[in-house]
């Protein structure tokens, strides 16, 4: 290496490792869908487990007629609102509790208790309080994710290197400067970890809210299909949910890569 050249290796868009990874993932997909196909066409009637080609056909149809967009946009929107609210409240409350350890200690068992409440048992209350419109679904998603953000914020703040803060203090940095330049960057991985877990949970919350009373959304679609013993509809709804969860997770990963420089 010479002094002029950048010694960091350029990252190729498609490295051999990446190609292999995608090949492996494709292989898993082909094997599992193949197994499903074989079972659905031999041992079990598609009435029970539908079949890949029926589901694919259904997905194609509801994509064309706009149903897929109509339902999934509702589910995703509720999940996103729940996520945003959970992030703001969980992060804010986490900062507050980190600031007042005595309060945090006092509240700890209650937070843990609330955290472990089965949300499905809360659903009737949510409908009572928030109606059967958008709000009850958003709050359902919120109730899943707020604790994740709260706990990760507190833990992340606790793990910030004390010496980094002291070093800044020795140069008379203000608390706001330290928060912005040391604590926040140090906590970002914790917040992204929370976001990754929360994406799935927010979708679960959103769908759960729809199962209990809605006229729209993937949860409603699945519920409606199962009421008519339409297994293919159920599987199509679930498949759409899985794809959305993967895409949202990928979006978080991209955001993380964009916001946190590689270590």
């Amino acid at each position, binding site marked *: 290496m010479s*002094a002029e050249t950048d010694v960091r290796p350029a990252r190729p868009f498609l490295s051999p490792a990446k190609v292999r990874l995608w090949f492996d993932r494709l292989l898993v997909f082909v094997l599992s869908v193949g197994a499903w196909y074989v079972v659905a066409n031999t041992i079990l009637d598609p009435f029970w487990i539908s079949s890949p080609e029926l589901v694919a056909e259904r997905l194609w149809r509801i994509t064309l007629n706009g149903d897929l967009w109509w339902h999934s946009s509702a589910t995703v929107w509720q999940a996103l609102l729940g996520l945003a609210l959970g992030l703001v409240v969980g992060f804010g409350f986490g900062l507050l509790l980190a600031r007042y350890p005595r309060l945090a200690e006092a509240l700890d068992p209650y937070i843990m208790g609330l955290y472990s409440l089965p949300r499905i048992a809360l659903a009737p209350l949510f409908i009572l309080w928030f109606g059967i419109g958008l709000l009850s679904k958003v709050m359902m998603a919120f109730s899943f994710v707020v604790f994740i953000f709260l706990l990760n914020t507190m833990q992340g703040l606790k793990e910030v290197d004390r010496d980094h803060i002291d070093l800044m203090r*020795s140069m*008379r940095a203000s608390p706001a400067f330290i928060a912005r330049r*040391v604590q926040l960057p140090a906590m970002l991985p914790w917040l992204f970890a929370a976001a990754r877990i929360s994406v799935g949970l927010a979708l679960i919350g959103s769908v759960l809210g729809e199962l209990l009373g809605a006229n729209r959304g993937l949860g409603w679609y699945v519920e409606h299909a199962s009421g008519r013993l339409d297994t293919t509809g159920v599987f199509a709804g679930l498949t759409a949910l899985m794809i959305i969860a993967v895409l949202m997770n990928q979006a978080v990963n991209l955001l993380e890569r964009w916001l946190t*420089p590689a*270590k």
Partner: protein
Amino acid sequence: MERATSAPQTPGESPAACAPPRVKVVGVSKTFPTPDGGVARVIENVDLTLAEGEFLSIVGPSGCGKSTMLRLISGLTPVSEGRIVVAGREVTEPPPGVGFMFQRDTLLPWATVSENISIALELNGTPPAARPARIAELLKLLGLERYADYRPSAISGGMRQRAALGRLLAYGPELYLMDEPFGALDAMTKMILGRELLRIWSQDAKSVVFVTHDIEEAVGLSDRVIVMEGPPGRIKSEYRIDLPRPRDFRAVRLLPEFRDLCERIWGDIGRHSEAE
């Protein structure tokens, strides 16, 4: 910062006579609560004066409280008893114009080498337009030009220490508190940076408290060497280093007085030292 610019201190003379001391430590003790509910006395009744422009080293066995002394002077840790005055003001919080280089490298892991240095420039009020030139200058001085855009995890331990030194120099303090700054360096880099430190120090007549395990390094750099013992940390003895200035950090080691001083300090630290 409020200090009038003065000529570099001449060696040997007591600079305390003409200027108020940069640091005054009076009857300071420090206790920490122990895990079993008691108290540990870590510093015991220390008195210490650092003259304006003086280069003072502290040596002593591991655990005798050297790092703690620096933290007390820096205002990061409050004293339990006694008081510390820096630049005429009693220390209750980190005072202005004090740069601290920790024993552990404390570069921010998500920031590049130059970003780490830049933070110190930001904190000492260097205008943004002037920062890149200053950073480039420091990187050159420390032989880190090629690593400006590297993150700390991608450079060696010695390079990290140099980067931390760069941050300290960028901050441009009046009082340098340096906790084993050359601990992770090879003999050659140590020599280069020691020389550089002497050069910077003699140009600006800054005050330095330098903690080290390396007695030759202490003698080679300092006006005065303090030997600590402990715990609890106390000042055991003090040596005035009347070697000529300006000093060559390497050539000075050939002087018989140098060898003599090192021998005496060695003898003083005695058996219970882990210093190499």
